[in-house]
């Protein structure tokens, strides 16, 4: 099966680096998948579940907002946070989501703070979703 080079980079180091068959994630306008020989593209992504398929096995990871750059040589995912589905503490994520939601209700007016909290909620939701996938 044909493969392409994938790397996932975060500020705390290189999270994942390998030859894979297929990846799937969520772009701003909806779900998107990349197969080998994809046309070069630069995509802004939302916090979501990243599905990596390698040798017919699927792996799931949570990734926060960031970018995916597809070039002929490789696919780079540049995000702030990344966690394997098996490493996620679902309870904590649920708690974080609840706290963020409560805060969002009490905030009024401050638009940038609101967006911030919305992103936190999105992150937590994506975390919870990812943690259920094994």
């Amino acid at each position, binding site marked *: 099966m044909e493969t392409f080079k994938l790397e996932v*980079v975060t500020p705390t180091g290189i999270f994942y680096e390998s030859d894979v068959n297929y990846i799937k994630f969520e772009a*701003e306008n909806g779900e998107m998948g990349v197969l080998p020989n994809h046309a070069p593209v*630069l*995509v*802004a992504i939302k916090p979501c579940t990243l599905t990596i398929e390698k040798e017919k096995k699927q792996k799931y990871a949570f990734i926060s907002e960031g970018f995916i750059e597809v070039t002929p040589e490789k696919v780079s995912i*540049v995000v702030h946070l990344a966690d394997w589905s098996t490493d996620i503490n679902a309870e904590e994520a649920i708690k974080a989501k609840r706290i963020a939601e409560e805060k969002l209700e009490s905030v009024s007016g401050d638009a940038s703070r609101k967006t911030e909290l919305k992103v936190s909620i999105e992150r937590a939701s994506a975390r919870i979703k990812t943690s259920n996938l094994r």
Partner: protein
Amino acid sequence: MANTREIKGRIKGVEGTKKITKAMKLIAASKLKKAREMHEKTLPFFKHIREIMLDIMKCTPDMKLIYFDKREKKEHRRKGYLVISSDTGLNGGYNTNVIKEAVKVIDKENAVVFPIGNVIKNYMLKNGYNVDTNFINTRYTVTTIIAADIAKYMLKSFKEGTIDELYIVYTEMESVMHLVPNTIKLLPLDNKDFKIKESGMREVLDFEPSAEVVFERLTNQYLQGVLYGGMVESFVSEHFARMNAMDSATTNAEKLSKKLTLDYNRARQQAITNEISEIIGGAMNLK
């Protein structure tokens, strides 16, 4: 010559100080190691961000974005300066050098100073600079989250026009023995920094949702990267300076302690000699 008890007290004091400076040196060394490791881990991320920005510039060189706006015609331009120092002293010339550099580059009249670190904050406040103390407490731990906060705040100020230019004054570690304070311009972005290499032309990229949106977001991350780099470099320099200062302090303490021990022995010897001669003198008198 001082009496023996006095010298003994001083030796004790010097030994105590030596222990402290030695411990501080070790602490600085371990912090230095940690900061360096952290920096190395972060490098690939920001390298990628920069590469992606370069790619965008290659594909859409005529993009008009607020971050490239030099605002040359505007009167009363306000310049923002992020100045990084340490929170505490005892690190040789580190803070003095930063202050010297800051005083050299900052024009008091139309500048806002964003001090990071207590030493520079106190200096700036005392000397009548226009100070924004939003980030003073960010010095204890350097993380990308803090850098992100600062980047966000700065971009907002830039967009709103409260600052028209942004500089960062930090300490660069040129080589192991050479720490140099340095000033670099962060905003507005300069096309020259993203110069397109003719040879490296790549086929056209598509953007999702659009080049502008992607670039705008990247700018934030890029600024964050540069800020973080500057902060970590300053942090590493600080600990390096402290390590060196404490090392020489320890050496000096050793020297002093040696000299004092010698003095002590001499004084003791003299006291004994005095006593003996007194006894002998007394014995002679009895004869």
